[in-house]
């Protein structure tokens, strides 16, 4: 069944969009990541213009992450205080990111800088997470009990407060800084930043994995709300028919993802997420190494430029 997308300007099969939405919703509910990394290339492969793909996907991920967020909230897996502090850093970071992007555009070569730094971060995070989760799994099999979380010097910085939900008493400087970095990244890369945020909350802040996912979803709800509104206000590129078709699958997928996630242990979730992060890194590496089918980019631009 083909449905015409008014803003993207082409017809797309309804069932393809449903299943894409389902997969992304599942990942979102299970790992607390947005899923933009998967959707942008897929939608572009279907012939949707990049600008429309990115904007409509923000709208669709908003639905998926809100659905997942509510499910996590009911299970009391959201640290609102932490989410709020991360958000403050995130807002400042994303504003700065916009200016940074402008500066990089002036120099040229912004793409290589961004792709390479993203690939390096993802590869590092993915491998580290895989190694750590495997070790933990082994230790648990041997019957050794782990500490709740490791204390690192960052936690001892000034302005300490109590995060009840996360069982933490740490300085607010690291969460603000993490929020800031993720904000910068999401402005420059056009991705939500869940891939950086989730591991950072687990390893740097030492939050329990289950709480991390719910809190990350809270973050994504805010980021995607703002970007949906900004994209349609500035570029008019949000295709609501496209995002509506995607979100049918997404809200269902997010609920299933949440249910699967609560059955798993923290280290099992981290292990699966590590594998997904490594796959994403490999795909990104492939993207810059493999000869493209069409060695050019054509964009339609507004007349007044």
């Amino acid at each position, binding site marked *: 069944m083909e*449905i015409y997308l008014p803003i993207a300007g082409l017809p797309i099969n309804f069932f393809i969009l449903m299943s894409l939405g389902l997969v992304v919703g599942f990942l979102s509910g299970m790992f607390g990541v947005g899923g933009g990394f998967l959707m942008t290339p897929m939608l572009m492969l279907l012939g949707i213009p990049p600008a429309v793909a990115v904007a409509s996907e923000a709208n*669709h991920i*908003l639905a998926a992450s809100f*659905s997942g967020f509510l499910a996590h909230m009911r299970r009391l897996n959201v640290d609102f205080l932490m989410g709020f502090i991360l958000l403050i850093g995130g807002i400042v970071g994303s504003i700065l990111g916009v200016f940074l992007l402008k500066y990089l555009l002036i120099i040229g070569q912004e793409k290589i800088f961004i792709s390479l730094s993203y690939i390096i971060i993802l590869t590092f995070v993915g491998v580290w997470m895989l190694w750590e989760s495997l070790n933990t799994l082994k230790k648990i099999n041997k019957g050794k009990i782990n500490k709740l979380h490791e204390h690192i010097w960052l936690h001892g910085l000034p302005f300490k407060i109590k995060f009840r939900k996360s069982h933490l008493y740490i300085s607010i400087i690291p969460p603000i800084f993490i929020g800031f970095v993720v904000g910068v990244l999401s402005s420059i890369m056009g991705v939500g930043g869940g891939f950086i945020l989730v591991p950072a909350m687990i390893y740097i802040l030492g939050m329990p994995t289950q709480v991390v996912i719910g809190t990350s979803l809270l973050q994504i709800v805010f980021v995607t709300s703002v970007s949906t509104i900004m994209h349609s206000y500035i570029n008019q590129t949000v295709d609501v*028919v496209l995002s509506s078709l995607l979100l049918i699958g997404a809200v*269902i997928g997010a609920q299933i993802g949440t249910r699967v996630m609560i059955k798993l242990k923290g280290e099992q979730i981290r292990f699966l997420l590590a594998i997904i992060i490594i796959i994403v890194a490999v795909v990104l590496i492939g993207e810059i190494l493999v000869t493209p089918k*069409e060695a050019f980019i054509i964009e339609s631009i507004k007349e007044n430029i």
Partner: protein
Amino acid sequence: MKSFIVIFLFFIQIYQPCAREPLLTDIVDKDISITASFDGAKIIIYGTVDPKLYKDSIIIINVLGPSSHLKIRKKEKYAGIWLVGKNEMIFTNAPGYFASSSNLDNLKSIDKSILKELNIGWNNLIISTNNFKNDEEVEPYKKILKSYYQNRGLYQIASNIDILGESLFRAEFVLPAITPTGTYNVKSFLLNHNGKLISSWANSVKVSKEGLAEGLSDYSIEHPLLYGLLAALGAIIAGYIGSEVFRRI
């Protein structure tokens, strides 16, 4: 369709004696609407040629889609890595669709300077740029655009003008599902066997969004902020409904 031909022939019958126009064409459906189930369309053209001139003459029909601003950048390989190049070309009036058809197998027998003068064929299509580049710089980007259109059915070269009788001919052009909206200019040329222009005729077709598709895209442009807010609100409501429904299962 049949009634169209009857009316068209009738129109020619009245028209011919007084005007003696050597070439006349008309289009079956001048308003193509894109609805929720749009999956491509066809531009069907009927035309007549003065019977005295019909033998050995050459008919060429060009269809140019609505023009738009396009930014083209090449991807280049640096140190084994594919990057988007620094240079960009901005076409300020690139047609969104290009098709040409004739009753010849190819146009090689026609003098190139005539084709150039009439702007027939992709190579003779004049696309302006906003950064005053010379032909040598523009040419590679025109080639890129051509292959981009070819891969998407937006570029078609055919020799499928059907001769239906002594003076009647018919041609059709396929518009793919991704065809842009706007006015399509259809220009028909009648050349004698030496390639000299005898007559030309122009028509146009309007492709526009209709119904829901039109309403949504208009609304997104006229009220962008409200559209964005509603889109975000819609997504939140959908997320809420999904969560509530699942809670009860």
